[in-house]
């Protein structure tokens, strides 16, 4: 059996004990141990951003972070967002098709709007340049982000 270690993570404002191998990625531990399957394995190689979560507020590809690296840090996943304006904006702008890439887009977008209440197009492009979507033409996603932005203030809730 592999050497597993027990340690604590702080996920969505709750402490959670996990037992995992040090070589397990945060993505796998979130999904397999904590049941937080909103972060999706799209490539497990850092190429698609479907697994993006926030670590101390910064968007991170959870497939390129060891879970043990997150010890002592605040992790936020899509399940930690409740009724935020950006989620609503994705619903209302039809910025979803199959939904597999959606959590990753929302996490990046959420962090973006927390840091820049009124980002210009270049900043939006930069922040979302890692997210792949195969269903859509991306226009709806851009529109969803912009709709939150133009409503005066960034989404600070939750």
């Amino acid at each position: 059996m592999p050497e597993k270690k027990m340690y604590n993570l702080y996920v969505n404002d709750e402490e959670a004990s996990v037992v995992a191998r040090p070589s397990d990625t945060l993505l796998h531990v979130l999904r397999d141990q904590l049941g937080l399957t909103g972060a999706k394995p799209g490539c497990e190689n850092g190429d698609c951003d479907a697994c993006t979560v926030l670590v101390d507020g910064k968007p991170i590809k959870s497939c390129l972070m060891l879970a043990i690296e997150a010890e002592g840090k605040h992790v936020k996943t899509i399940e930690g967002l409740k009724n935020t304006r950006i989620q609503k904006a994705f619903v209302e702008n039809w910025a979803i098709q199959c939904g597999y890439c959606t959590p990753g887009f929302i996490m990046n977008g959420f962090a973006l709007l927390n840091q820049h209440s009124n980002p210009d197009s270049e900043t939006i492009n930069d922040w979302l340049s890692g997210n792949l979507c195969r269903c859509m033409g991306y226009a709806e996603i851009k529109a969803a982000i912009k709709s939150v932005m133009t409503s005066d203030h960034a989404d600070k809730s939750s």
Partner: protein
Amino acid sequence: MISFDFDYYQPCSIAEAVSLYHQLLAAGKLPIYYAGGTEIISMARMNQLFTKAVIDIKTIPECNVLHVEGSKLVIGSAVTLTQIEESNLFPLLSEVSKRTADRTSRNKMTIGGNISGKLMYRETVLPFLLADSQLVIAGNNGFKTVSIHEAFNERLHLQSGEILVQLITEQSYSTLPFKTVKKTKQSAIDYPLLTLAALKKDGQIRAAFSGVCRFPFRLTEIEKEISQNQMVVDERIDRALKLFPAPILDDIQGSKEYREFVLRNTLVEIIEWLEGVS
């Protein structure tokens, strides 16, 4: 999913990290230093890398500095690329950094990791090569400061157990006119077909290259040729191309012929732009 197991260590000081390294090495654990870890995780998943112990240096204070001390800009090796961009203390470095991978990756990628990694591009080394930066390296015998030109030749040469701690750059380089161009096969988020970074100092053009040959480089002989402003640009480029240190790459990013075509165009663009500024 990484199929093999390794132990994870998070030392708080350089001394601890170095001694840990040697202990683990002696124990046959094939230790590696770990900063952003993006390349390590990805290569480990594909079994292109193997270790039984990673030593995470991210919590070592010296590796996390990002500030100006007197006339010098000091950047810790564990500083992430987006931190560097957001501080914008070295605009040329910010520009090169912004064109490396995508932003979410750069939230994790570190400057030290990018420069000492196994991927051949190591684009963020280019500004440091141009600025004749100094590297602070720690090992068994404590700290040493060496010129980047001494330590970086095709790749970063470290002795077993040595850690790249900091990169020190004269602040004056931050205000020089510069130009950087990255060309890709098609998608902006891709390895470079080529990345050129250039600046102008004392009327001379300095240029460093990634993606052109199988390693990043800066050669003063090439700079001499492209700075000969009494000569037409095309001729200077012809002469410079003869001095490239290795064959031009021929791979899935682009054929050798196309790279040379793009390289010529890009050099013209850079030379004309830098000669136009004072």
